[in-house]
């Protein structure tokens, strides 16, 4: 069990569980990992597996080399003058143990004999992971483990990393700027903003019930702004800044953020029947097809994004400049504080 109590941050990660920390750049994600590892000054309390690593009150501050952390650096920081195998052995693992670990991660002995500068990005990432795991760490800290990879290998590397981490018993913290990646890699996701954790929970829970417009935006939801007041049938109506209105089943009053997920937005030629269905007339700004999905950039009174099947995009004959009606249910509309 890892317990971290620093200013603005209280975390607990149990054995075998994984916490993903995400937030915008400059939120302090890397600094938090460095503080846990003892590479950066901190004040508060850090405890891992019954050992106290940091206690500002008792003036305890265990040196980084004596905290048993497995640290995966953002650009991997492999020793360029040592072979991949020697890199893994550096932390004290025996040669057979190091090679067995590399084998498990798909690095064969011939590749393991090579020096890091000659390896591909994916190979370097797995060698660095093996190196961090080789010393049997009490806590595993991964700083943007996938950001140095090119976008095409990233999704596969994310699934492989998830499988590898599932077999790790040590409490694990993964830092990433990408919410989807955080959702894939962590059992729970914590959102960090300006050095403070603003919300923590399961990824699905954060997406469904964002505590603020900031969190909603980070989870990839569309966020619009407006003024809420009570409406008929216990619903809330929000008059959007710039014109138009939407209904929500959430309760709110005054200035609010309206959050809706792109995949909950449907597009049509004409306004739908039934008044409880939200609909906004919008201009098509951009169309990005990703496999069988299409992301449609729209501009109503405020910008929004819809995600529909590529087939419907074709059927609707969408093209930049065209006018469509974006619709979604009042039940899919979250009202969040700004």
């Amino acid at each position: 069990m890892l317990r971290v109590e620093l200013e603005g941050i209280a975390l607990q990660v149990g054995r075998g569980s994984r916490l993903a920390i995400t937030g915008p750049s400059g939120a302090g994600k890397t600094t938090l990992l460095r503080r846990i590892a003892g590479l950066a000054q901190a004040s508060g309390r850090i405890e891992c597996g019954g050992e106290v690593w940091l206690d500002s009150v008792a003036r305890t501050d265990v040196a980084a080399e004596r905290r048993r952390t497995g640290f995966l650096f953002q650009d991997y920081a492999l020793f360029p003058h040592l072979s991949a195998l020697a890199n893994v052995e550096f932390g004290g693992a025996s040669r057979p143990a190091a090679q067995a670990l590399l084998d498990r991660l798909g690095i064969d002995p011939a590749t393991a004999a090579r020096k890091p500068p000659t390896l591909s990005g994916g190979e370097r990432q797995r060698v660095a992971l093996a190196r961090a795991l080789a010393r049997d760490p009490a806590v595993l800290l991964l700083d943007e483990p996938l950001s140095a990879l090119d976008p095409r290998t990233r999704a596969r590397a994310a699934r492989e990393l998830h499988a590898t981490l599932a077999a790790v018993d040590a409490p694990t913290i993964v830092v990433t700027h990408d919410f989807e990646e955080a959702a894939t890699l962590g059992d729970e996701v914590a959102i960090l903003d300006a050095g403070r954790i603003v919300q923590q929970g399961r990824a699905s829970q954060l997406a469904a019930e964002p505590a603020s417009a900031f969190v909603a935006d980070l989870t990839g939801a569309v966020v619009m702004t407006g003024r809420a007041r009570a409406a008929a049938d216990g619903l809330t109506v929000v008059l959007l800044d710039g014109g138009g209105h939407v209904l929500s089943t959430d309760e709110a009053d005054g200035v609010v953020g309206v959050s809706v997920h792109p995949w909950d937005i449907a597009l049509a030629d004409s306004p739908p029947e039934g008044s409880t269905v939200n609909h906004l007339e919008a201009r098509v700004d951009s169309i990005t097809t990703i496999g069988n999905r299409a992301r449609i950039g729209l501009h109503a009174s405020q910008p929004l994004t819809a995600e529909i099947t590529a087939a419907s995009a074709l059927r609707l004959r969408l093209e930049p400049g065209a006018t469509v009606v974006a619709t979604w249910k009042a039940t899919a509309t979250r009202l969040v504080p700004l």
Partner: protein
Amino acid sequence: MTSIAAQRVHSGWFTALLAAALALTLLFLGLPVIALFVNVSPADLISSLGDSSSVDALRLSLETSAIALALILLVGTPAAWTLATRDFRLKPLLVTLVELPLVLPPAAAGIALLAALGPHGIAGGLLDDAGITLVLTTAGVVVAMVFVASPFYIRQAQASFEALDPRMLEAAQTLGAPEARRFVRVALPLARNGLLAGAALAWGRALGEFGATLMFAGSLRGVTQTAPLALYERFATDFPAALALAAVLVAVSAAVLIAVKLMTRQEPHAASRA
């Protein structure tokens, strides 16, 4: 259009200026070295090497400069690491002190050494009690060499350690390596090229040491008369022999410089972050 044409003219005369500056530099630095070899016939070279006093002087130079270099590496490397990795209040003063011999006139360095370590120097009594005599001894030659040459190495070593990617040392730290292990297994191999270059500079300076050696250790044949001192003695009485000795010194120095260049060319570790 006119402005582009004007710029071309401008860059034309500037390129010519740069080429002229480079040509002048090459001529000025190269001519004396070439003249040396033009003036020395192979027969002179061989006969000068047959002269036992020249050979003694060369051997003494190589031995003392090798010992001086070993001492500089052994003590200077950890000292440079300390200066590179720690911050303390008197550090700027200390760094200036380390660099002082770089700008000190060698004769002044010799006097300073006498004042410190000579028979009547401030530490002379201590050395005397320990049974150590430096003045007019081979050990004195080594002391003079270390004094004038070590700053060349320490400065370069400190800069090389400071230029290391801090993430490398942090990675070693998270892998449980205490400082001694980080120094030996990570810092030394990664700073290798810079350390070698610094060592070559320091060795070259030690090999050429003249003023401080003369003042502190004297010029006794076979004991303290290094090649530069022998060369100076010869120059008044036997110019061709002096030329031959100079040619040998140039050849040895050039060989070391080329060897270091070859050793540092391979394995550019620094490119690892790309």
